[in-house]
């Protein structure tokens, strides 16, 4: 099992290297360090950041479709608060909104036992609708803290890349080197069994969604700073991009297996693909199709791989878990 995982990450790395070399061969401008740092890496940070808690959530068999709306809602309320009461209030409101949104998701999912999909699909529209209603479909502008988060360089790299790097290390350790991480796998494999072996499933689920809300709040500073203004619909498809990264990284969409390092490599792959397509002057619409196709291919590949694996083990052909419906 260990060996399999290792080789899978290696395959991902090879895929990334292949894409990178191919694009660099077609467009030499792509290889400039400035382009790699300031376009390729800087543009993926928000997605990469939210993909970290999303990996944890998907490993437990859950899903959060509301991440994009949550991030925009944080930016909208934070930006408005900063405009009215100053930067301190803006930062506080952003974080509070993120925590509150995550708590709403977590409570409904864990306590009322409504499926993750339905809950977060509804809150996705709820949060987006709130941003839209509150701003009257107008824009919210960046304030000094957000601009700082989006546009500062520290030791030659944009600050958000440093933040992402630190978070990535923390999340790798959290998932693979703590008891908390093991419990997530247990919940994903069989939540009833986990519950009866003493895992507080409800509490962990709520924690995860709150954590996801918090990271969305953090990402919202960077997003607002980078674009200097947001509208209620800026976060459309953000959820899909995040899920694409996680699934591409080898985390099973039905829960129970996954690898944080895979998510990190997948983030690199998507970053390279996105900026590469831009360098090659391929229109945005094609990029959308490519994104959807990449997600589908990743899903199909894992489905086939899982089928092969269970056949090898001689396990009985079981029905698809219902949790995903």
């Amino acid at each position, binding site marked *: 099992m260990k060996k399999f995982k290792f080789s899978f990450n290696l395959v991902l790395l090879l895929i990334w290297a292949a894409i990178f070399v191919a694009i660099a061969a077609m467009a030499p401008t792509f290889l400039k360090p400035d382009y790699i740092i300031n376009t390729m890496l800087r543009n993926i940070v928000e997605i990469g950041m939210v993909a970290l808690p999303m990996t944890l959530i998907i490993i437990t*068999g859950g*899903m959060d479709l509301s991440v994009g709306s949550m991030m925009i809602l944080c930016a909208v309320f934070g930006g408005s608060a900063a405009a009215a009461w100053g930067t301190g209030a803006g930062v506080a409101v952003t974080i509070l909104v993120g925590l509150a949104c995550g708590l709403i998701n977590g409570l*409904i999912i864990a306590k*009322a*036992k*409504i*499926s993750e*999909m*339905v*809950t977060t*699909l*509804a*809150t*996705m*529209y*709820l*949060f*987006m*609708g*709130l941003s*839209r*209603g509150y701003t*009257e*479909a107008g824009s919210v502008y960046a304030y000094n803290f957000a601009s700082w988060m989006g546009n500062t360089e520290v030791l030659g790299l944009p600050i958000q890349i440093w933040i992402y790097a630190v978070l990535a290390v923390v999340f790798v350790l959290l998932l693979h080197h703590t008891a908390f991480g093991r419990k997530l796998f247990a919940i994903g494999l069989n*939540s*009833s069994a986990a*519950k009866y072996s003493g895992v507080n*499933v409800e509490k962990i689920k709520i924690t995860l969604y709150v954590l996801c809300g918090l990271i969305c709040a953090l990402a919202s500073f960077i997003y607002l700073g980078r674009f200097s203004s947001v509208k209620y619909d800026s976060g459309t*498809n953000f959820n*899909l991009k995040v*899920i694409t990264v996680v*699934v591409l990284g080898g985390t099973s*969409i*039905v829960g129970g297996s996954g690898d944080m390092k895979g998510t990190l490599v997948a983030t690199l792959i998507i970053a390279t693909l996105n900026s590469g397509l831009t360098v090659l002057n391929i*229109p*945005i*619409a*094609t*990029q*959308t*199709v490519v*994104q*959807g*196709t990449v*997600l*589908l291919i990743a*899903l*199909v590949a894992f*489905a*086939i791989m899982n*089928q092969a694996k269970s056949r090898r083990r001689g396990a009985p052909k*079981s*029905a*698809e878990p*219902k*949790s*995903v*419906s």
Partner: protein
Amino acid sequence: MKHDRKKNLTTEFYLLVFLAVVLVFLGVFAKGFYSINNIMSILNVYSYVLISAIGMNMIILTGNIDVSTGALISVVCLVIAAIGKLGATFPVLLITAMVVGMLLSAFNAFFITKLKIPAIVATLATTQIFQGSLTLAVEGSIYDLPATYTWLAFKAKVFGIIPFSFVMCVIITVIALLFMKYSRFSKKIYAVGNSTESARLTGINVNRTVFLTYVIAGALFGVSGVIVGTAGQRVTTTMGSGLEMTFIAAVVLGGTSTAGGSGRILGTVIGALILASISSAITYLGISTNWADFIKGAIILISVLVSALRTVKRKRSIPGKAGVQAS
């Protein structure tokens, strides 16, 4: 069984009461809501919401979901606009739309049944593919469409006032009600939704059932697409964006469990009416339409919560069951 029937009756009963309260409230506070013009325009919206919601209801009954419906309808709109530009008449448009709907829905079903990808993720991905290829195929919009194309929206009125789309909606609803009550296939849908494994063990071809359900639903989405697409002389690439949420909301509001296996068309009929009148009601109440998404989201969330709390209460006698189902 008897217990079950009683439960379903009460779901629809509560909904009816809610609907009645809302309608009375609107009568008192929303001036002009009950004008003939507004009612007819609501009926038109109701038609396409309900037709699609019936399809969505069948899909959700099997325990799956389809979030690509909005993009699917956008594709249907553009395809019929393209042939409408050449002067195709309504029957041709309708048949084309149904075929396109069925094909795209079969595409979704292929990933779900053959490749075993969870429905929500598969349809999220196909949403991107549908929407992305549209923008590639068409630059912005198709416009200056002939009168033969917009016949349904402007000319087709029964007794000179009732939109023909509503007649189509009534016919489809009646067929659906009978189909879901008496056909063998509908029993298979419920069986698959209740437990894929036991359905398989009783000899039901699960994959075929789910596949056919998607195809039937696709045809219904196509019919909806005709109503949405022929509403004006200009068809853009985002005609259907976000509609899937309204359909899912109508189904969930109608008391269908998103875990599959329980729910009836009658609930959807009422749920769709509530959702179809929201936008118009908001306008007549003097609230900015910018709040429409928020109100829709809130209604879905509250209705899901209410039905879940009732289920949890009922299932308390069977420990562990509720947790397993919802996890």
